[in-house]
């Protein structure tokens, strides 16, 4: 179990976890982006974080990637409290261990550098390759591993690539550092389906081979099942349902999880003009009942937890 019930103040940590969040909150003024988030990331395993747009997924990722600090709560790295920024060397080793692939491939590559340059830099910086030949081979291997043709791609600049091609470069760049933890924030949402599966399989195999702990953030609950052993469904800053992926997906208990599953595109159910109000009302009702804070957690399976509905204010 690497998604834990968030029992306030309790120090529950999976012994083998590389990163653990305990009762993390993050507020932006009146917006409570995260409310009592607790889960841990384990080497060789993937945790999927799914939920509606704006529910706080990226806020979690930014805290783990040290781009933001929590309002309260604790973050552990190899069992050590790293909530507060530590010494220079500690920070450096943390930042090297935790790499991130962002949601938007358009914003995260530097327009003045070639694809090759984006990959050579981390390879050299972290001493993973020696010499010109080594660097070129390293770049080729990385590009091939993400399904790009090295000869066609290495010399290109970001603006010469399609959205999907850019995202693959981003994944290659994160892998160049050889991290322990990979936080992938919607890594495939801009990739076409025919490549999506390939990338997800790539992430899975890297996870196994390199014993990588993977946090896979997605709004595509169907892909979560292909990558992650465990899943956390978030709504409005709270974890509403979590545990074993197959258990959550095949036997959803929380109304929001059910809504999410019901909205997965189904080619045999075309949208009918005039129906939108009905779906909107249904979705809005479920959001309303799912939003209030609640401390109640039901254990509904060996590794399957559901938050009880809170009182509507």
């Amino acid at each position, binding site marked *: 179990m690497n998604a834990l019930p968030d029992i306030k103040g309790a120090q529950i940590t999976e012994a083998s976890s590389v990163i653990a969040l305990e009762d993390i909150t993050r507020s932006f003024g009146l917006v409570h982006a995260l409310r009592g988030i607790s889960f841990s990331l384990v080497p060789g395993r993937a945790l999927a974080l799914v939920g509606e747009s704006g529910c706080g997924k990226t806020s979690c990722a930014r805290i783990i990637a040290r781009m933001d600090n929590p309002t309260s709560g604790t973050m552990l790295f190899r069992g050590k409290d790293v909530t507060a920024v530590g010494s220079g060397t500690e920070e450096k080793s943390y930042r090297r261990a935790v790499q991130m692939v962002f949601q938007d491939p358009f*914003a995260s590559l530097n327009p003045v550098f070639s694809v090759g340059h984006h990959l050579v830099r981390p390879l050299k910086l972290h001493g993973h390759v020696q010499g010109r030949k080594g660097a070129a081979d390293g770049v080729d291997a990385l590009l091939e591993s993400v399904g790009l043709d090295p000869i066609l791609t290495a010399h290109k600049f970001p603006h010469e690539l399609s959205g999907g091609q850019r995202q693959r470069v981003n994944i290659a760049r994160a892998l160049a550092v050889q991290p322990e933890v990979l936080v992938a924030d919607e890594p495939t949402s801009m990739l076409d389906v025919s490549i999506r599966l390939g990338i997800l399989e790539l992430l899975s195999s890297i996870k196994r081979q390199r014993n990588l702990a993977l946090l896979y953030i997605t709004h595509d609950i169907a892909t979560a099942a292909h990558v992650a052993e465990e899943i956390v469904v978030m709504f409005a800053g709270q974890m509403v349902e979590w545990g074993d992926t197959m258990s959550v997906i095949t036997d959803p208990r929380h109304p929001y999880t059910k809504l999410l599953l019901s909205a997965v595109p189904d080619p045999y159910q075309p949208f009918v003009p005039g129906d939108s109000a009905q779906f*909107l009302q249904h979705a809005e009702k479920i959001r309303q009942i799912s939003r209030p804070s609640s401390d109640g957690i039901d254990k509904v399976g060996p590794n399957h937890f559901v938050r009880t509905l809170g009182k509507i204010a």
Partner: protein
Amino acid sequence: MNNALLQIRDLSVDYLLDKGVFNAVKNVSFDIGRGELFGLAGESGCGKSTIAYAITRLAKPPAWVAGGEILLDGQDLLGMTERALQVVRWKRIGMVFQSAMNSLNPLMRVEAQFHDVLYRHTGSNREKSRARAEEMFRLVGIPADRLSNYPHQFSGGMRQRIVIAICLALSPELIIMDEPTTALDVVVQREILEQVVDLQKSHGFSVLFITHDLHLMAQICHRIGVMLKGELVEVGDVKQVSRAPVHDYTKRLWGAIPSLPSMNAMERSPA
């Protein structure tokens, strides 16, 4: 089809590079009828966005339209002066692009961005713009009191909905949506696209819907075109392309979609 709103004839678009010419779009022809939802599918890099940019003539060098015609109501967009085109863009052809969520001005409140667009294209005053903005926010499911916020105060998905709202505010005849919901969760995606389908029916605009999610495309579009490496390899009615695809590539695209493991206690759509 004579009453087509948009006719694309033998369109070829190249990228002129130091190393030579790259043919990104090769002799592509298709029509979008009035009130039609037309989908363009195909894998990453096949040229979908290049077509979208060519239609609105927003393609910048090194992109070069090497040949063909793009007719809106019979009028060739490729031959128009930039000035004439300004009137067409946004007012007649609305655009929601892949990275649209980053196209909002970070320094301007969202309300002001609505007014900016509405004033420029319709001469609207502040009061009218505010009312229209509130109406559009309701449409895309964001509380109207957040109109006074700045873009960074919204999540990526919310920003994308705002761009769609701004585009719809001008009631264009054709809306080009290039991966409009890739950054959104499936619930919000379905809410927005069901609304697009509804609004399309009530307002009668046409849509060019670009995505690589064939499942989603099949739920929305009347006709679908499938592209492979710059060529349009199959065009047809949604039923035909989804249930009886002719081209091997289309069949492969369908086979490659990650689907949910079967569910037992699953609620399908309401009622």
